[in-house]
């Protein structure tokens, strides 16, 4: 958390006075803009390689990642989140859509044109066993970015690599060691050092901690946090573990069957999830307190995730949704901004603000004490953006049955973000109070 890292985007002077808000960086300009992103994998069969079907792994994504923020991408396995990450890295060619990085559309560039740009976006891989070449020393692995991008760091590659190793909490003496001599957590640190070698702007982390022991996960997540504030990194973190995403992300996008069903600021999403799928997902988070565990509503979805080869028409979640009605089978709900900075693709969203300004019953979400730090800041961010983004909110008109109930008057905006405030009182589920 160095001051220097923040200096570049200290646009919001108003916030500087508040120490807690200052500890988290304010998002800057849009760094990554994804529009209409699709990836369809053809299924071929038989001798003639006839096209027998298509897996719609990713089917139309729109999202932005702002400079300095962390976007978490969650969803069940097979929902297309890893595919999305790989397309942003252009390890997979998108079937359709654009990915703008710093204003340039990556999807139109050839491999050769893309090569020099690659130093600005790097990836941290899921499996530290397979992400490091077993035949290379740590020095070779972490030095590879310099060699491939033909960058000569000051003082030579070896010195730069040793500094990187120190940065991620490894000993520079490990330079000549081989990956198999390290534990999983250490290997993941090596992978992080490699990703940071060229000081990228964006880091895509695909399940960065899911292969690690739980006791190591916290270390690695905190390391990612520290590095973000030190270098002003922007993260796209892909994970299925809601706790990890909650801990790391500023904004969270929930995916289901190749589509984003909900995207919102972290606190907003965890305190008042609006899409039924998100609500169900949240209810599945294990609660470590046995007393509370009894009282919570565990929503069990019926059936399996439908095949992405033949996704259900209109709303893809209607086959498993307890609120589904006829309109859900015929008309696809657009991803619309129902409350400020909270986009949901649902005809019948949950936890919508009612007349008196409070949210419906807030489910389960019990933030850890430290999360309260971000709460105040989250509300501020909301207030600030609501003023500048009337164009975005106009999209609401498209969601007919919902549009009436989701009024975007400034008076209600803080209320949408407020329900965490009561939770600061530990252990008790006090009903949410209206905002002053």
């Amino acid at each position: 958390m160095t001051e220097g890292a923040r200096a570049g985007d200290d646009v919001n002077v108003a916030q500087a006075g508040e120490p807690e808000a200052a500890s988290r960086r304010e998002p800057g300009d849009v760094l990554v803009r994804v529009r209409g992103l699709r990836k369809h994998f053809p299924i071929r069969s038989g001798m003639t390689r006839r096209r027998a079907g298509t897996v719609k792994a990713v089917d139309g994504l729109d999202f932005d990642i702002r400079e300095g923020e962390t976007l978490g991408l969650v969803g069940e396995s097979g929902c297309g989140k890893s595919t999305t990450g790989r397309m942003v890295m252009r390890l997979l060619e998108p079937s359709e859509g654009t990915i703008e990085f710093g204003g340039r559309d990556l999807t139109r560039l050839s491999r050769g044109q893309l090569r020099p740009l690659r130093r600005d976006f790097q990836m941290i891989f899921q499996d530290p066993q397979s992400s490091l070449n077993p035949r290379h020393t740590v020095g070779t692995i972490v030095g590879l970015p310099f060699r491939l991008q033909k960058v000569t760091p000051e003082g030579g590659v070896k010195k730069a690599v040793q500094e990187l190793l120190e940065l991620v909490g490894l000993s520079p003496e490990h330079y000549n060691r081989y990956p198999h001599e390290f534990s999983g957590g250490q290997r993941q640190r090596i992978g992080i050092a490699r990703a940071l070698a060229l000081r990228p702007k964006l880091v895509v982390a695909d399940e960065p901690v899911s292969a690690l022991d739980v006791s190591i996960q916290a270390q690695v997540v905190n390391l990612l946090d520290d590095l973000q504030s030190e270098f002003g990194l922007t993260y796209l973190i892909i994970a299925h573990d809601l706790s990890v995403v909650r801990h790391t992300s500023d904004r969270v996008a929930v995916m289901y069957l190749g589509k984003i069903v909900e995207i919102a600021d972290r606190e907003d999403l965890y305190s008042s999830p609006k899409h039924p799928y998100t609500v169900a997902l949240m209810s599945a988070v294990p609660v470590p307190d046995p007393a509370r565990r009894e009282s919570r509503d565990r929503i069990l979805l019926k059936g399996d995730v439908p095949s992405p080869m033949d996704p259900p028409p209109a709303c893809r979640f209607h086959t498993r949704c307890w609120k589904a009605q006829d309109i859900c089978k015929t008309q696809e709900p657009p991803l619309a901004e129902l409350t400020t900075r909270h986009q949901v693709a649902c005809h019948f969203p949950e936890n919508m603000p009612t007349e008196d300004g409070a949210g419906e019953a807030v489910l389960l979400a019990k933030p850890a004490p430290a999360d309260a730090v971000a709460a105040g800041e989250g509300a501020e961010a909301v207030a600030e953006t609501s003023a500048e983004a009337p164009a975005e909110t106009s999209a609401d008109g498209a969601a007919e049955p919902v549009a009436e109930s989701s009024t975007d008057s400034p008076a209600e905006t803080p209320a949408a973000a407020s329900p965490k405030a009561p939770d600061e009182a530990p252990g008790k589920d006090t009903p949410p109070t209206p905002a002053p």
Partner: protein
Amino acid sequence: MTAPIETTGVAREAHPEAIADAAGARIEGRSLGQIAWARFRRDRVAMAGGVVIIFMVLVAIFAPLITDVIGGGPTEYHDDLLDPVLNIPTGSFGGASWDHPLGLEPVNGRDIFSRICYGARISMLVAFLATLLSVVLGVVLGTVAGYFGGWVDGLISRAMDVFLAFPLLLFAIAIGSSLQGEAFGLHGDTLRITVLIFVIGFFSWPYIARIVRGQTLSLREREFVEAARSLGATDRHIIFKELLPNLVGPILVYSTLLIPTNILFEAALSYLGVGVQEPTASWGGMLSAATPRYQDAPMFMVVPGVTIFITVLAFNLLGDGLRDALDPRSR
């Protein structure tokens, strides 16, 4: 809950191993190759195989020097040591003596030991060069097929099927007999050896290529390949720097196992008269010459047979040992 505990700032202190290591002086890692070598050295059977092979190679290289001391030249006729009536060597064990430790040929009276030494040159030369040729072809085509996939893979894989289905022995005999005399500016034994090497090499590459293709297919899905690609690595870099170092193990093992096959194949071709011709010595040729006389001169047949057997066995033991050392999971 799997939630990471909120310990911002603690991360840096949480590496006892880093601290411990920093205290130690120089840290030199052991590569997988070094570990495999340590494992291999403990495998006595494989080591014995290796010793036998080194011995055979030395015999082949220094055949003229050895036969100067024992046995004499491979084309020296010792008629005086043959029984004038039966044309078989006098004395027991095919006329074995201090001068001729493995006895003499019937009819010609040439020294068997020196012919075995010279035969080793042909066998080793043909087997090693043919294996080298097939390894080069197999590795190149196998990696290309596995890495690029698609129609390239289809083409190469079908070619492999064709080569494996080819009636190799018949083809070799046909080519061997049609290339008598002079061809490609070569003649005599040089031509025949070259033909043997190319025929054997061209037809055994699919064995290597299949292994390499399979390994490449699984390796290219590993995340370190994606990591290299995300850094902007070229296909060249990925194949040579990322994939090939990981393929060395299987390539080494299967080459070692291909050599004895090729030794046997060379012997079979020589036995059938396609290989080198008299008076040049070869193991297969000796076996072939001994077959009609196995009743009155058994040593003439036993010696080349046992030599081939020991050599092939040694290579197989070495290959198995290498496989165990390089890939402990397959044990």
